[in-house]
């Protein structure tokens, strides 16, 4: 972008750079607190001393988390599950959104309404459970992939992205002898990389964080995701009213450590995906 490098421009950049730095710091405060707590000792946290930096620095919370029996295997399994699930979700999203974005497709209106309405239909846990059971997916890994394989919300975003592709590009493809599938792959997809990256991220994060289906659809502890294992660890405290005898408060540092651990894969992956939606797209092929 060739901006006129005036004083006004420099002031603008300075103001907004500062603004965003401040905003970022403020947004980080609670996260810094979680990090500090995760590296502090239980006693220090209990006395309310910990806020922005660790007090009585210790790694015991992390050690405890990693030693938790099924942690490492659950971690590996969860990553694979997340990747497989994301791929399936993205394929579903694209093959739903692309046809619906093509103008003039008969029946697209009805089908679109059908998809949109699913965002407002929630029958509750029991019918969903019985449905999954009827498909014989209970206690299988498919129960963690298929029931949430397509989000109408994400599909709409994808569809919007496809719609913004200028149709003259499609015409050009047609003239070149491409059928719809080839057009999708060669013309449409490359133009919507930012949206593809965005939605892949949303699906991946969604799968990584989702606990309800692991809780209800799965019985064997081998199919527990790492979020489930961490949650169990946090809930390991005995509720003294019910279970009598002395309880051990599960230290806040363990809770915080488990949060940091569960955020880790996302933080690692995110920078790679980020380049896809900060790249500008040259639509130089089309004249206004």
């Amino acid at each position, binding site marked *: 972008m060739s901006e006129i490098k005036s004083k006004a421009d420099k002031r603008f950049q300075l103001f907004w750079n500062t603004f965003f730095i401040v905003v970022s710091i403020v947004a980080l405060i609670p996260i810094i607190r979680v990090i500090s707590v995760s590296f502090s000792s239980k006693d220090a946290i209990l006395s309310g001393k910990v806020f922005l930096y660790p007090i009585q620095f210790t790694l015991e919370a992390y050690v405890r988390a990693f030693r938790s029996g099924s942690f490492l295997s659950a971690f590996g399994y969860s990553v694979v599950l997340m990747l497989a699930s994301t791929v399936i979700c993205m394929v579903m999203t694209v093959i739903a959104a692309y046809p619906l974005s093509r103008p003039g497709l008969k029946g697209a209106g009805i089908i679109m309404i059908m998809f949109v309405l699913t965002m407002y239909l929630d029958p509750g846990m029991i019918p969903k459970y019985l449905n999954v059971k009827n498909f014989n997916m209970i206690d299988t890994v498919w129960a963690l992939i298929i029931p949430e394989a397509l989000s109408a919300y994400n599909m709409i975003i994808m569809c919007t992205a496809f719609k913004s592709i200028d149709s003259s590009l499609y015409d050009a493809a047609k003239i070149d002898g491409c059928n719809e599938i080839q057009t999708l792959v060669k013309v449409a997809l490359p133009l919507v990389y930012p949206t593809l990256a965005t939605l892949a991220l949303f699906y991946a994060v969604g799968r990584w964080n989702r606990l309800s289906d692991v809780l*209800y659809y799965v*019985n064997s502890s081998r199919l527990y995701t790492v979020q489930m294992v961490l949650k169990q660890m946090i809930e*390991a405290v005995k509720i003294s009213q019910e279970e009598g005898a002395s309880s051990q408060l599960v230290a806040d540092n363990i809770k915080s450590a488990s949060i940091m651990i569960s955020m880790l894969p996302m933080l690692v992956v995110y920078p790679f995906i980020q380049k896809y939606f900060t790249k500008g797209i040259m639509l130089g092929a089309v004249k206004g």
Partner: protein
Amino acid sequence: MRTSRWLKSCTAAMLAAVMLAGCGSGGTTATTAAAGGAAGAEEKGEEVTIRVMIWDRGDAAPGTTVENNALTDWIKAQMKEKYNINVEYVSVPRASSDDKVNIMMTGGNAPDIVFTYSQNLFNSFAQNGGLADLGTAYDTYGGDIEQYLGEAQEIGLVDGTRYAVMKQRGIEACRHTAYIRQDWLDALGMERPKTKEELFAYLEAVKEKNPGGVSNVIPWGMSGKMDTEMHYVNFVGSYVDLSTEKDAYVYSEQYMAVAPGSIDGLRKLNELYNKGLITKDFATDTTEDIFKAQVSSGNVGFLLYDTEKVWDYISVLTQQEGKDTFVPVSCFDLADGSYRNPFEQRYGMFLMIPKASEAKLDACMKYLNWQADPEVAENIAYTPDHERDELGVPIKATTEVFHASKYPGTPDDYNIVNLGFAFTSDRTAVIGKWNKEQEVWGNLAWFENYYNVRNEGKYRFPVYSNISQEESDYGKNVQDLMIEYVYKVISCPTDSFDATQQAEYGKLVSAGMQKILDARAAYYDSVN
């Protein structure tokens, strides 16, 4: 791909289970009359496989699962040898356990033995025909249960039919205890209060003189935790005269805050709050973080809390202060000068067998009966490798030690029937156990005192297994609303106490509270 391997192995496992279950359909038809001992003790029948629920807390030893580890191996070996029963475990996350049990019951694939602490859940399953009738099986195979835990079993009967075996609690414990700062009492030259009046005098003195010299003196610390009445229920209860057993049942601990006389207690708390003697805006502290910080840094002079949970705070505080800080105290005197300190009931969990698992009834009962023996229970809860110390108290190993032997981190989860080990009724042993566990800050004298204070005014509310439809539908919501009621009524300005109290009480009634109380009264009358 990994996924299809899992699918195959899961399917294989399920098929295997189904086949084994099919084999053992007849169950134990052989008659009892084993050689001596409790009924059915050594009795082997046809091979049966039972699926037992086990809580998963994410702390299985590395390389093992909560369904398959050294402890389950030991249990399975014992059961196979004694009764020819194959035991399989089905893990249920400890968090949301009741929800999961509900869903599994709905889907018809619950394990053969399930359990819950919720009387509501048990009652709803029983009333709706979802549980197997345990009567005959209990009489035939439940001898040890009757012998060791008999007094706890009554609540498992609904309208005369037995639907649950009750787990028995261990060391008898009161629900809540008040603690006071001994060092501040000393600085003020006051004795430990034995009455509420003396307590009020102490609170005023603390506020005025700040004997600890702390930055933010809080005479009576409270938090805004929304799922417990521990901060006030014993205090308010001391204003209530439960003259008849009927009143005691109708109100019990859950509805104590609306029992006759409770208003005076609430009014008094409101007065204390407005004088600045209770944590300001305590009701906003829903996560308890502020409360914990205040207690652990020494700003609080008095609190009423779950009886043993305070020890964690005391531990931190004593290490900082280096002297005696909190001591337990019994000062909520009733109108006639005596005390009423509600204790836990003898029963804990409801152990149930779904109707769908009726064919395995006898085998399940044998499993439960086997665990009723305190020796067996102790071996399970502390693992078979455990040792006892000089007082006869089993030594609880650390998680690391458990994991090293491939035991799960919480072996006591497998012990679902009897917590009443041999030492739990021995006063010296119990005190010794506490002292050992709290070595960092405790001493024998402190725990002797604690034992005495705890038992002062020992009281158990009468309890029945019946739960009315109203209570089943609205009970939980009403109880939550009652906590809200109390917090609001304490926190409002004194001159709006009456208006607030009436408005909030009205909300309770429209949420169904009066109907619940009436139903309880009606039930009491019907059985007495």
